[in-house]
C-alpha cells in the first residue's frame, strides 16, 4: 500500500514527462499543459494522503525497492523514507508545483516548445520528489543532480540565445562543484559508518563511541559545500542571479521555492551529523549571515525586476542557513515554507508584469501598473509586506524566529541579519514603488497593450498571497505546531521554543521597526521624490560596485576560468605536440643514422675488403688478448 502510494507519488510526474516528450507536440499546447499540471496535482493529492497518515500515526514510512549499488562495506538500495520532514517538503513542492504548472499553461502559451517546457517541469518535480523522499544519501544524490539537470535545461530553455546557454552551463557546473563536495562527504561518512542510509546512520552515530570528530567535521564541511552549491551560498551563489535567464515560472518554482531549498533540506536531514560538528555549524552560520548581507546590498541597486527578486532569494536563503548554523532546524524549515509562499508569489507576480509588458524586465521602464493590473499589485504587495516582516504576515513570524535565535547565540550575526532584513524591506518596496506607482515610463506601444493577466495566472497568485498571509500560523511563537510536528527528527532538545519574555518582544519591535524603516526610506526615495534609478552608464561610486555585484563574476573568471582555459591551450599547443615530437624523434634518429650509414656503403670493393680484414684482425687479436 505504502509502496504503491510512494510509487504513484514519484512516477506520475515521470509519466507526465514521458507523455509530453513523446506525444506532447501532437497533443497540442493546452492538453500537454493540462497533462503536466494534472500529473503534479496527483502527486500533491498523494502527498496530502501521506501527510494525513503521518500526522495520525506519527511515525515515518520506509519503502525499499531493490539493491542498487553494492560496495564492499556499504550496501545501497533504492528506497524511500517518508517521514515528517520529507512529507512536509513534498506538500509545498507538489502544491506550489501544481500552482506554477497551472500558471505556466497561460504564461507559456505563446511558446512553440510549450510541451517541452512542461515535460522538463514534470521531470524536475520527479527528481525533486526523489531528492526529498530518498531513504539514503545516494538516492538523494540522484534527485540532487537531477534537479540540477532540469534547471540546466530550463535556464537554457530559449536555447537560441547563447548567453542563456552560458547561464545554464554556469549553473550546472557550479552545482557540480558543490556536488563533488557532497560526494566526498558521502565517502567519508560511508567509510566511517559504512552506511549512507539516514535511519541506520542516525542510530550508528547515536551508538558510536569515541568518534573521530575531526573527520566527521570534515564530512560535515564537505556536505555543506554541496549545500552551498545548490542553495546558492557564498562562494557558489553567482549562478542563481544568472539563472533568471529562464522563463519566470521556472525562477519561481526552481530558483525560489523548491530546488534552492534542497541544501537546507539536506542539512536538516543530517542534523544529527551537523550537531556533532559544532565548528562547522558556526561556519554555516557565518557564511549564511554574510551571504544574506552581501546579496541584500547587491539587491539594493538592481533594476531588473527578476534580478532583485533573485538576490532577495539568495539573502533569504542566507538567513535560513544562519538559523541552521545555530541548530535551529525547525526555524529554518519554517522560513523555507513561508519564503516558498511569498517568494513564489512575488516571482509569479513579476512574471505577470513581464507578461503584461511583453518581456520588459527593467523597472526603469515600468510604473503605474497599479491600476491596470490590480490583482497582481495586491498579491505582490501582500508578499512584499510578508517578506519585509510586517507583523502578522507569514514572513514576520519566521524571520523573527531566525533573528531571535541569532540574538540568543551571537549578537554580531544578529545585527548582520537585521541589517539584511532592513535592506530587504527597502529594496522590495523600491521594487513595488517603481513598478506599480506613479506614471508608466514604458513606450506608448507597450502602454496600449497593458492589461491584467488571465485567470490562470491570477488564481495561483491569489492562492499564494493567501498562503503568504496566513502561512505564519503553522508556527506561532509560544505554541508552535510545526516544532511539535518536526520534533521526532531532532536529537537535541528543539531550539526555537522561546517563552515570550520582554527581550523577545523588544526584539520583535526592533525587527518591525527596522522593516518599517526600510519601507519608509523606499517610500521617501521613490514615491515622494519619485527619482528613478539612472541609466547604467552614469551609475557611479559605491552603487556602481554594487550594481556590478562586487565584480565577483569577473574575479571568478580571472582566477578560475581563464587560467584553466589558457592552461588547456598551452597543453594543446605545446605539451601535446612536444610529446608526440618526442616519440617521432626516436624514428628520426634511426633514420638519420641510416642516412649516415648509407655513405659508408660506398660500393668500393677495396673498402669492403678492408673492413673485412679489419674485422678479421680485430677478432683474432681479441682472441690473443683474451688468452
Amino acid at each position, binding site marked *: 500500500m505504502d509502496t504503491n502510494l510512494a510509487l504513484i507519488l514519484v512516477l506520475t510526474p515521470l509519466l507526465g514527462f514521458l507523455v509530453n516528450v513523446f506525444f506532447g507536440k501532437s497533443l497540442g499546447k493546452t492538453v500537454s499543459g493540462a497533462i503536466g499540471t494534472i500529473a503534479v496535482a496527483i502527486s500533491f493529492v498523494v502527498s496530502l494522503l501521506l501527510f494525513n497518515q503521518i500526522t495520525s500515526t506519527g511515525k515515518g514510512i520506509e519503502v525499499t525497492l531493490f539493491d542498487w549499488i553494492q560496495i564492499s562495506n556499504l550496501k545501497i538500495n533504492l528506497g524511500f523514507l517518508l517521514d515528517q520532514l520529507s512529507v512536509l517538503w513534498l506538500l509545498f513542492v507538489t502544491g506550489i508545483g501544481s500552482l506554477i504548472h497551472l500558471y505556466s499553461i497561460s504564461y507559456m502559451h505563446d511558446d512553440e516548445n510549450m510541451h517541452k517546457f512542461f515535460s522538463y517541469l514534470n521531470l524536475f518535480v520527479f527528481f525533486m520528489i526523489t531528492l526529498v523522499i530518498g531513504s539514503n544519501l545516494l538516492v538523494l544524490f540522484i534527485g540532487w543532480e537531477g534537479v540540477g539537470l532540469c534547471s540546466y535545461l530550463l535556464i537554457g530553455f530559449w536555447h537560441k540565445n547563447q548567453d542563456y546557454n552560458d547561464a545554464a552551463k554556469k549553473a550546472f557546473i557550479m552545482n557540480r562543484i558543490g556536488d563533488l563536495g557532497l560526494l566526498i562527504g558521502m565517502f567519508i561518512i560511508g567509510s566511517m559508518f559504512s552506511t549512507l542510509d539516514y535511519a541506520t546512520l542516525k542510530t550508528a552515530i547515536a551508538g558510536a563511541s569515541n568518534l573521530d570528530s575531526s573527520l566527521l567535521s570534515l564530512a560535515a564541511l564537505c556536505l555543506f559545500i554541496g549545500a552551498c552549491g545548490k542553495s546558492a551560498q557564498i562562494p557558489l551563489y553567482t549562478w542563481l542571479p544568472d539563472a533568471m535567464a529562464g522563463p519566470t515560472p521556472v525562477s519561481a518554482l526552481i530558483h525560489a521555492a523548491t530546488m534552492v531549498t534542497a541544501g537546507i533540506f539536506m542539512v536538516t536531514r543530517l542534523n544529527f551529523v551537523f550537531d556533532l560538528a559544532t565548528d562547522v555549524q558556526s561556519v554555516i552560520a557565518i557564511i549564511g549571515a554574510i551571504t544574506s548581507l552581501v546579496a541584500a546590498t547587491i539587491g539594493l541597486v538592481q533594476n531588473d525586476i527578476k534580478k532583485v527578486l533573485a538576490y532577495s532569494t539568495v539573502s533569504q536563503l542566507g538567513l535560513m542557513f544562519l538559523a541552521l548554523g545555530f541548530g535551529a532546524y525547525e526555524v529554518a524549515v519554517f522560513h523555507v515554507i513561508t519564503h516558498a509562499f511569498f517568494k513564489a508569489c512575488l516571482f509569479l507576480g513579476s512574471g505577470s508584469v513581464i507578461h503584461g509588458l511583453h518581456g520588459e524586465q527593467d523597472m526603469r521602464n515600468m510604473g503605474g501598473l497599479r491600476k491596470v493590473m490590480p490583482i497582481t499589485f495586491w498579491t505582490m504587495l501582500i508578499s512584499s509586506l510578508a517578506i519585509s516582516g510586517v507583523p502578522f504576515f507569514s514572513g514576520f513570524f519566521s524571520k523573527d524566529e531566525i533573528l531571535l535565535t541569532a540574538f540568543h547565540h551571537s549578537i554580531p550575526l544578529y545585527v548582520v541579519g537585521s541589517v539584511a532584513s532592513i535592506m530587504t524591506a527597502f529594496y522590495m518596496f523600491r521594487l513595488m514603488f517603481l513598478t506599480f506607482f506613479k506614471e508608466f515610463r514604458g513606450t506608448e506601444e507597450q502602454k496600449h497593450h497593458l492589461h491584467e493577466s488571465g485567470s490562470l495566472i491570477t488564481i495561483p497568485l491569489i492562492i499564494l498571497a493567501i498562503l503568504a498571509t496566513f502561512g505564519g500560523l503553522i508556527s506561532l511563537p509560544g505554541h508552535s505546531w510545526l516544532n511539535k510536528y518536526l520534533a521526532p527528527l531532532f536529537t537535541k532538545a528543539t531550539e526555537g521554543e522561546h517563552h515570550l519574555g520582554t527581550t523577545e518582544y523588544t526584539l520583535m519591535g526592533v525587527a518591525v521597526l527596522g522593516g518599517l524603516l526600510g519601507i519608509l526610506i523606499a517610500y521617501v526615495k521613490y514615491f515622494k521624490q519619485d527619482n528613478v534609478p539612472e541609466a547604467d552608464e552614469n551609475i557611479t561610486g559605491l552603487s556602481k560596485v554594487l550594481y556590478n555585484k562586487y565584480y565577483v563574476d569577473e574575479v571568478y573568471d580571472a582566477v578560475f576560468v581563464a587560467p584553466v582555459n589558457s592552461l588547456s591551450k598551452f597543453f594543446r599547443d605545446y605539451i601535446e605536440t612536444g610529446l608526440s615530437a618526442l616519440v617521432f624523434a626516436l624514428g628520426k634518429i634511426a633514420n638519420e643514422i641510416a642516412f649516415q650509414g648509407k655513405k659508408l*656503403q660506398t660500393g668500393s670493393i677495396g673498402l*669492403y*675488403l678492408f*673492413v673485412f680484414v679489419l674485422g678479421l684482425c680485430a677478432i683474432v687479436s*681479441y*682472441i690473443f688478448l683474451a688468452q
Partner: protein
Amino acid sequence: MNTLIAITGLGIFCLLFEILNLRKAIIPITILGLIGVLALNFYEFGTEQSYYNNMVAVSKFSTAFSSLFIVLTIFLVALSHNFYQNHPTKISDYVAIKVFLLAGAVAMVSFGNLAMFFLGIEILSIALYVLAASDRLNIKSNEAGMKYFLMGSFASGIILFGICLIYGAMGSFDISEIHESALSAELPIWFPIGLILMIIGMLFKVAAVPFHFWAPDVYEGSPALTTALMSTLAKVVAIATLFKLIAGMNVISSLENQDLLNTFEVIVVIISIASMCVGNIMALRQVNVKRMLAFSGISHAGFMLMTLLTVSASAGVLLYYTAAYALSGIAAFSVILYVCRDQDNEDITNFHGLGKTNPLLAAILTASLLSMAGIPIFSGFFAKLFLFNQTIQAGYIGLVIVAVINSIISVGYYFKLIIAMYSKEPNQERTGKPFLIYATAVVSIALNIILGLFPSLVLDLLQ
C-alpha cells in the same frame, strides 16, 4: 648420401635435356625429380650413417635441412619458368646450375670431413658467382658478379687457411677425429685461430656484420631470381653449415679452456647484435626492395647467430627459424618477381597500389613481411619466440632485449612497403596471372602459416 647422388644425377639430366631438345619439359621434370628426391630424403630421415670413410655423414640434422633446401629449390625452379621466358636457350643451364647448387648445399650440411665441407662451399659459391653475373649484358649484374666473386674467393681463401691451421693442429680433416683430439690433446694456439678463420669465412657467407658489405650490392645487382636464391637458400645453407661446423666438431663446448669459450660467446653476441642493428637501421632508408631485403637478411642473420650460443639445444629452433624465414622470403620474392617483371629496377614505387590491382599478391607480400617482422600467427613470430625462449633460458636476456628493440625498428621498413601497396594509387597496368608465380607464392605462404599454426611439426624434428 643417396639424396646427394640423386641430385647430381638430376643436374646432369637437365643438361642432357638441352641436348635432346626437350626444353619445354625441363622445368616440370626437374620439379618432379626434386619432389622424388625429397621423398627419398624423407625416407633417409632418421638413419644415422656415414659413407666413404666418413666423408659424408648423414644425420637427422643433415636430412632435415636437406629437405628444406630441396623444397626451396623446387620453388626457385618453379619461379625460373617465367623469369627466363625471354631467353629460352639458357634455361637448361640455369636450372642445371640451381640443381648443382643444391647438391653443393646438401654436401655442406652433410659433410663429415673438412674436404667435403670445402668442396660444398665452393660448389655453392661458384654456382652463385655464375648466377649473379648471369645477366651478361647488364652492367649491374656484371658488377654484382664481380664483387661477389672477388670477395667470395677472398673469403674462401680465409676458410682454406683456417682449415689448414686446424689440420696442422689436429693432423686430420675428419670431424669426429678432430673432435676426439680436441677433447684430449693439449691444443696448439693456431687451432682456435684456424677455427675463428673458418667461422669468419662462414660469417661472410651468411653476411654478418662486419663481413656483410657485399650483400646489399650483390642482391641489388643480380637478377631478381638469383637474389631470391641468395637471400633464401644460400643464407640458410650458410647458417646451417656454420651451425653444423660448430656443433659437429663440438669444439666450443668441449674446450676445457673456459676463457676461450667465453671469448667465443662474446664474439658471437657482439656480431649478432651488430648484424641486427646495422641490418635493421640501414634498411630504413632503402628505396630498392631487393636492397631493403638484403639488409633485413643481414638482421635476420644476426637473429640466427643467436642459436650458436646454445648449440646443444637449438638445432630445432634454427631449423624452424630458417624455414620460416626462407618461406616468407620465397613468397615475398615471387611477388617481387611478378611486380618487377618488366621494370629495370625494384624500387618501392613499383608496388604502389598493388592492393587494388592484385589484392591476392598484395596480401601474400603483406603476410610474408608480417612474418619477417614477427607478427603472430605467421611462423616468423614463433621463430622469434622460440629463439628468444632459448636465449633467455641460456641467460642472455640483454641480447634478447636488443633483439626486441630491433624487431620494433624492423616494422618501420616492412610497413613502408605495405603502406605503398595499400594507401598509394596504382601507377601501372599489371596484366597476366602467371600460374607458376601465383602457385609458388600461395604455396609458400600457406606453408609458412601452417608452420605457424603447428610449429611442433618442424620444431620437434631434431629433438
